[in-house]
């Protein structure tokens, strides 16, 4: 793993390089400017045709205030907002905190940790759809693997995880999300930990720092910025997470576990109200815009740090 993570960490060392002159001497001359423009045109075209136009079109689709009146009087929508908040608040924090702790665990230098890490990243390597469908069946109340194990081993009749209670289903979805994405963030935080020079720890050891103090006074302050960026990034990706909810609980039972991302798609494609779907998604803008702005700043200024 060390060689792997080393590669992620390399950008951390980049600041000294970026101070070097990076552009062509004397600016662009003659036909060079034309070339430079021509090189950027393909991406500009992709952006205008497939990002800018859809964004503007979406804003236009969802501009009617009546849509929002309709949304706010709809209990399913209000419940989905609550679900989204729970999903973000609990899902993201549990996942990131778990990743932080586990990244410390994977710093251990025993022979089997390397192999364990290879197994542990499997959920992230496997495509989302197969695993979420598998989890969906695994949690089936009657014939799912979990309840079969509960019955065969403990003689407990397990509940219908996905079709009896909103809270069980929502917890199942959150657990699936964590299962899928915690390995990814663990690897990132592991890279962050590995980038901390050993001398800092040696100095702390000389000052007599214990294990816990090492974490609170050395590791965490040095990791805090990375942790914050990862949490923000994860919040915004989780906000847009469609697959875990759609395939694990499908929004059920009785539409009680939808989040904004899945409810929007349902409105647009199942009840053929694309404008309502856009409005559903757009109602997340008050949360999304600040996140996007903070993240763009963080990613720009600490470009080399992440």
């Amino acid at each position: 793993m060390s060689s792997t993570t080393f590669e992620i960490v390399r950008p951390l060392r980049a600041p000294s390089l970026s101070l070097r002159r990076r552009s062509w001497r004397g600016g662009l001359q003659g036909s060079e400017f034309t070339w430079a423009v021509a090189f950027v045109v393909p991406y500009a075209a992709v952006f205008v045709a497939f990002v800018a136009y859809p964004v503007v079109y979406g804003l236009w689709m969802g501009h009617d205030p009546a849509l929002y009146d309709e949304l706010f009087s709809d209990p399913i929508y209000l419940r989905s907002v609550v679900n989204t908040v729970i999903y973000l608040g609990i899902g993201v924090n549990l996942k990131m905190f778990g990743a932080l702790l586990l990244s410390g665990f994977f710093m251990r230098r025993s022979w089997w940790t390397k192999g364990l890490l290879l197994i542990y990243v499997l959920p992230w390597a496997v495509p989302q759809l197969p695993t979420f469908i598998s989890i969906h069946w695994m949690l089936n109340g009657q014939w799912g693997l979990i309840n079969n194990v509960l019955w065969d081993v403990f003689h407990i009749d397990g509940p219908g995880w996905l079709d009896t209670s909103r809270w069980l289903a929502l917890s199942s979805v959150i657990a699936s999300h964590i299962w899928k994405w915690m390995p990814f963030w663990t690897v990132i935080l592991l890279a962050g930990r590995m980038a901390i020079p050993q001398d800092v720890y040696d100095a702390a050891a000389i000052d007599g720092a214990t294990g816990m103090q090492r974490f609170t006074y050395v590791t965490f302050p040095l990791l805090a910025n990375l942790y914050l960026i990862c949490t923000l990034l994860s919040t915004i990706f989780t906000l847009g997470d469609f697959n875990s909810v759609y395939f694990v609980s499908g929004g059920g039972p009785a539409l009680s576990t939808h989040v904004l991302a899945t409810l929007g798609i349902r409105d647009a494609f199942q009840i053929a109200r694309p404008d309502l779907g856009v409005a559903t998604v757009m109602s997340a803008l008050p949360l999304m815009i600040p996140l996007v702005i903070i993240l763009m700043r963080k990613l720009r200024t600490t470009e080399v740090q992440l």
Partner: protein
Amino acid sequence: MSAVTAEGRTALRRPNYRMRRRLSEAMAVALALVLIVWTLTPIYNMVLVSLESHGDVFTDNIWPAHPSFDSFWIVLSQGYWYLQYFWHQFGNSLYIGAATTFITLLVGSLASFSIGRMRLKNGWVVSNAALMTYVIPASFLAIPFYSIMIKYGLANNLWSVIFAEVTFATPYAIFIFQQYAVSIPIELDEAARIDGASPLQIYLRIYLPLMAPALVAVGTYALLLAWNEYLYQFMLLSSKRSMTVPVALAQFLNSDEAPWNYMMATAIIYAIPPVAIYYAFRRRMTAGLTMGGVKG
């Protein structure tokens, strides 16, 4: 006197220390076991169901009673009506993956060359646009994207999906390319310039060859993104012959009594190529994973 107490103290401490180490080792092993069970359960479930017969799926087995590879054979020979076009759909997924990878690499490397190396005036606008696209969740753009694809006349066309995947893969490509290019000395470009090379020649002969590791990393990312993505493929492709494997897989769920064993066999066959690619290129891919790998 003091020496004696010091010695006594270490003698007292040693077994304590050893026990604490052993305890922490035991806790690590316990944690490792929990992690293995937690990680492998859904994957085990996938394998278990795929090895069972249709009847055995609906029992309380926790291991396959009569394991057989029949389901895999049914999938590979397209022997079930949901799987009629399996190889065709597999081909569609491959086609979308290959095209997305190629276009992403081309568009991304050209843009990063122009912005990062040639320092096109106001190039930062383009980088910012890319960064913004990166942080906007794809699912939030899905509905207007679908309407626009109908306007472009691309509905139910593989190219609509290719454009969607390119749209979401290129920002990451530009970001990684720009970062990686910092390590390539600008003097190389300058020497070529003095010798009279055009920007196109510099791009082809100097920039691209030296960027090979970043191209591999981003190419793998784009390929996996296109292969694994579901939502856009589901929205944009509706006919059986234009569908990709994940869309066909999700279709199973619509039937009354889903043939779970065939479904899980399909899922495993679909998952094997990306997992193999992931483990093969893991080292290269992690080069830039800090920024991505998350989307889709």
